[in-house]
């Protein structure tokens, strides 16, 4: 059995930042493995560990060479090998839309032929939250979105999942395999990479693939979405702020709380 897990290096923006055209200026960005993908990686690795059969876990990412550092974290946590899709044609794309990501990942699925695909629910930078389900439709896999519990019955050909709906309600769903599942945070407890894992990750393969390696050309990454403006949202705060040091702030807040009957014993 083979599990393909999609991972993404995302940029996190520092508290204070400046914009540079349609981007956040580089010096205010920190790069990290997307939070949702950490849970997807953990779920994939746990499936491999808990299965009696051989399970290969392959991570796929769309990202420039820099992202290999982040992808190594997934390898250090037990992913067997990784595939990294990048191409010069992607360098100038401001916003890679869901359709383009789907075309790239579909080509990888065709090459890898996995039995199960896990993705994070969304990426913390562009927050589309759509690639997993779009991919499932394109490759004719079944799917489930926002999965917060998974009981895989590979022999029975189904995945029993819980989907986390709004308002503290969970939906129980049976999904035919092969499937794409988008993984919600909290489904497991992602492990820290061990020193041994980090050492081993250095020798694991991250295979770079260009568009031509996937039988695609530059048309595959043409986005229908054009980023036209990027700006800091206006703050709408009309809060009453308490000034001074921590003691003064606390004393002023305490006065308000008492006036409104909080903490009166």
């Amino acid at each position, binding site marked *: 059995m083979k599990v393909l897990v999609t991972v993404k290096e995302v940029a996190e923006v520092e508290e204070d930042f400046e914009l540079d055209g349609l981007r956040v200026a580089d010096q205010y960005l920190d790069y990290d493995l997307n939070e949702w993908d950490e849970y997807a990686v953990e779920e994939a690795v746990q499936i491999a560990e808990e299965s009696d059969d051989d399970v290969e876990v392959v991570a796929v990412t769309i990202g420039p060479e820099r992202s290999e550092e982040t992808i190594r974290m997934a390898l250090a946590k037990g992913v067997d090998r990784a595939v990294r899709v990048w191409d010069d044609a992607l360098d100038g794309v401001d916003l890679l*839309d869901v359709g383009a990501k789907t075309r790239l990942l579909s080509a990888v699925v065709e090459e890898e032929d996995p039995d199960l695909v896990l993705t994070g629910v969304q990426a913390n930078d562009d927050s589309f939250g759509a690639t997993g389900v779009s991919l499932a439709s394109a490759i004719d896999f079944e799917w489930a979105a926002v999965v917060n519990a998974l009981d895989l019955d590979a022999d029975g050909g189904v995945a029993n999942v819980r989907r986390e709906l709004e308002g503290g309600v969970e*939906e129980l769903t049976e999904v035919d395999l092969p499937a794409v599942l988008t993984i919600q945070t909290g489904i497991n407890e992602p492990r820290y990479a061990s020193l041994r894992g980090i050492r081993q990750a250095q020798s694991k393969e991250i295979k770079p693939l260009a568009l031509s390696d996937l039988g695609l050309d530059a048309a595959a990454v043409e*986005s229908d979405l054009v980023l036209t403006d990027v700006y800091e949202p206006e703050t709408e705060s009309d809060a*009453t702020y308490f000034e001074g040091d921590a003691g003064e702030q606390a004393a002023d*807040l305490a006065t308000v709380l008492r006036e409104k009957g909080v903490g009166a014993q």
Partner: protein
Amino acid sequence: MSDVLAVVEHRRGSLRDVSFELVTAGADLVGDTGGDLHLAVIGGDVDAFAEELSLAGVDAIHTVAEGDEFNHDVYVQAVAALSEELDPTYVLMGNTVNGLDYAPAVAERLDRPLVTDAIGLQNDGGLVVTREMYASKVESTVEVDADRAAVTVRPGEWDAAEEPGEPAVEAFSFDLDESRVRSRVTGFEEVGSGDVDITDADVLVSVGRGIEEEENIELVQELADALGATLSSSRPIVDNGWLPKDRQVGQSGKVVTPKFYIAIGISGAVQHVAGMKGAENIVAINTDPDAPIFDIADYGIVGDLFEVVPELIEQFE
């Protein structure tokens, strides 16, 4: 002329709020170009839903009597079939958990670009969508370079339509391909019915990611005790297993409306705000003056919770 097809949502016999917000968003979108607003309601008691959705601005409601509850395989086929018949310029869906479970497949199947989580829509010769990036720190506008598009809209961003109207109601039927229904919803479960009901509390002291370590939660519990308040939290605390799920406030947790909500080390992600914005008074304590929580707070302390909270405990001891 740009027609819009908006797909409403229901769960366990009730239309969800986002359905009425989709009517407003759809009506705004067709308002400028003189197109028609169509609604699709799929599954459940479609006739009763159609009656409830007979609102001003809606031109036609298409009822699809297929199943009782949401099933994404059915929704994808129904919305695709209806879109092929009506050929709307825009298909609008909710950016909800179920929206995320079928909208991308609809867009892929219809070969339309998809823009998710819209917080603003403009139809000015083409579609321009406002959305957020980088955990709400940045807002962006995205122009759709295509004649047709699929869009999901963020719940809570548009007012709910209320004014009655008289749209045509028509049953829509299509040939459901059963071989492509490969998932079965087997039930629902309420989560977290522990001994504490945070929806019942007058005062909530709520803790978020800013608390850094599990053992620091004790500090916030001390404050809750000193105030006679109940402890709640944002999602990361529950994801880390530091507090049980029944303490989680937010879109996927509980919706709370206490007299006082004291948010400690909570940045105010939209999913969290959805669960607590109805509080009578909101107090925010956070180091980041630009944290979105301050936008909805009545009282703010920009400061280090590890300095402020102990001082506050002292005030009440």
